[in-house]
């Protein structure tokens, strides 16, 4: 099955945007691992902005990047949100509240603790009542989110995929190895956009291929630091403007096989 990527958003240490990430992955610019910039969020009223957790800020930032590049109207675009661990900062605060007398869980932290809180903030910020799902497949949450988005697009619904994980708090760091924040968004559709885009021929199947790793050690270290950063081999293939095959492991036994073909603007669908 074939789909097209019409827009990209990225926010990670040393990668400030989708276009910046592509320049770095193409080798046009060096990769310099600085702290990730502060996420930029548009569309929330002041009270929602105050309550909006870090995970949702990352997700909204990259989602809005990808949507702007695709030129899509948010209210009509279905969304897929995927995260390996959700918001562990909030989990930590809620668990601490449960061991203090008197027990007083914050209502805002409670509603922010649901895995789909990010989707809720997206809907409110973008005025979107379009279908949305929120999922997790732990370390393989990028491959899983992409599979869901590719299925949705192939069945006719253009959709925005947003995958994110942020740093765990100190209490949970020993049991959850996410060592860099990373968020990525892809605008996925079935019909070829008029502008330059990337075609992906995709198939899910039993694992028979090696996982693609990155040549540059600093980028490879970033790739393994966060489930969302498993997107980097796909982004590198998109950046290099030549056809390439990318294998994303999907749990121990499966894989998502992607034949990636960057396309110029304007040409007719082949």
């Amino acid at each position, binding site marked *: *099955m074939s789909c097209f990527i019409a827009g990209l958003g990225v926010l990670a240490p040393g990668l400030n945007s989708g276009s910046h990430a592509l320049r770095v992955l193409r080798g046009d610019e060096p990769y310099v691992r600085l702290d990730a910039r502060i996420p930029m969020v548009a569309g929330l009223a002041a009270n*929602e902005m105050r*309550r909006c957790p870090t995970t949702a800020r990352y997700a909204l930032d990259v989602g809005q990047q990808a949507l702007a590049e695709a030129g899509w109207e948010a*209210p009509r675009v279905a969304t897929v949100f995927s995260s*390996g*661990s*959700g918001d562990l900062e909030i989990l930590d605060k*809620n668990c*601490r*509240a*449960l*061991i203090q*007398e008197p*027990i*007083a*869980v914050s*209502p805002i932290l*409670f*509603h922010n*603790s*649901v*895995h*789909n*809180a990010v*989707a*809720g*903030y997206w*809907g*409110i910020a*973008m*005025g*979107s*009542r*379009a*279908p*949305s*799902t*929120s*999922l*997790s*497949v*732990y370390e393989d*949450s990028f491959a*899983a989110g992409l*599979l*869901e988005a590719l*299925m949705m697009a192939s*069945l006719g619904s253009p959709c925005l995929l947003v995958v994110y994980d942020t740093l765990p708090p*100190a*209490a*949970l*760091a*020993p*049991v959850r190895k996410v060592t860099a924040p990373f968020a990525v968004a892809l605008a996925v559709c079935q019909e070829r956009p008029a502008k330059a885009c990337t075609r992906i021929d995709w198939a*899910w199947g*039993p694992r028979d291929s090696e996982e693609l790793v990155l040549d540059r050690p600093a980028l490879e270290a970033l790739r393994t630091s966060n489930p969302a950063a498993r997107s980097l081999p796909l982004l590198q293939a998109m950046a290099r403007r030549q056809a390439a095959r990318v294998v994303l492991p*999907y*749990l121990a*036994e*499966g894989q998502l096989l992607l034949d990636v073909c960057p396309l110029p603007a304007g040409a007719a669908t082949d």
Partner: protein
Amino acid sequence: MGPPRLKIAHYTLVSALGRGLNETFATLYSGRSGLQAYTTVGGLVCDVGRVSGVEDVGIPQSLSRYGCRNNLLAALALETDGFAGTVSELVQKVGAHRIGVVVGTSTSGIAVTEAAYRDPFFGNSGVLPVSFPYRETHNVFSCADFTRRYLGLTGPAFVISTACSSSAKAFATAARLIHSGICRAVVVGGVDSLCDTTLYGFQSLGLLSRTRTQPFGAGRDGISIGEAAGFAILAAPGVLEEAYGMMLAGIGDSADAYHMTAPHPQGLGAWEAMSAALAAAHRAPRDLDYIHLHGTGTIHNDAAEDLAILKLGCQETPVSSTKGATGHTLGAAGACAVAIVGLAMSEGFIPGTVNTEVRDPALQSALVLEGHRATVRCALINTFGFGGSNCSLVLEACP
């Protein structure tokens, strides 16, 4: 022209109503509630729908790190009504890699982490020990990971976590896996278990009933929480045709884009989900014999759902909520509703709104207070969650 209907070829449910379909039906038919008084470690007293015997469930040694209440509850359901056995037969027929697993949950095994924060190790060090089985118990994907390992399935697996619509949306992802040709069948489920986070969280929002939930009732004051595990096999045409079951005819989902916890006051998102599910099923509102309400028993949720049903034109359609019987099982609510509607179809019975004695006169839907015999061939299920996450399913009896 929408995608073809898919068969829900086998299903099971473990909840406060009982273990398996026979006990579930017997309790539903009697009109009894499964709710009982409960006190948390911290002293919060409330009524909950608790499943007895979960602590005693055995799981294989190889999965011992997965042994939290949420996964034990899942194992209990998988061993009920011959579910695991049917999956084994299916593996022989279509292959383990052609069977997916999609489970909905809101809090997974979070109770294990709550307990770890109370442990002296955390008190002394301020961190969880490296040996803590976070991935296998608390992580949101844990229950799908456990389910696929328990059943020996190697197809794609997902956890869907959209709060109280999780296991209804799980059916949507499962249907896409089949329509895309990736899977021949998918084990779809919903599993959520009692934990302090949800009890104290709903209390903090003023949404936890001080007595016992009365969905659509005049004196309703909030939800009662329950735990449950429900599983179903969604199958491509030609797979498991001989088994009992029903058809998944249409799915509709929407977002409220309104507020993180409060529903849209006119039920706009709810109406959109219901309309979309009917459109996908090529059905009109008048075709519905029954609507299984989300019906949580909070003042605003029930009022918004009522308005959405009226806007849909279903003021004559029998509706009821079973949350007074099971409690609100959160991420498992969709899986509960599918099993209960399956029983309504196979047994010819519309369940009553258990624990609601006087309906709220301001609500105009045709609320069924007392369960009664009736033919149900086409039904709609509603689930609505935090973050304005709505999902409705249209189910049909097998022709």
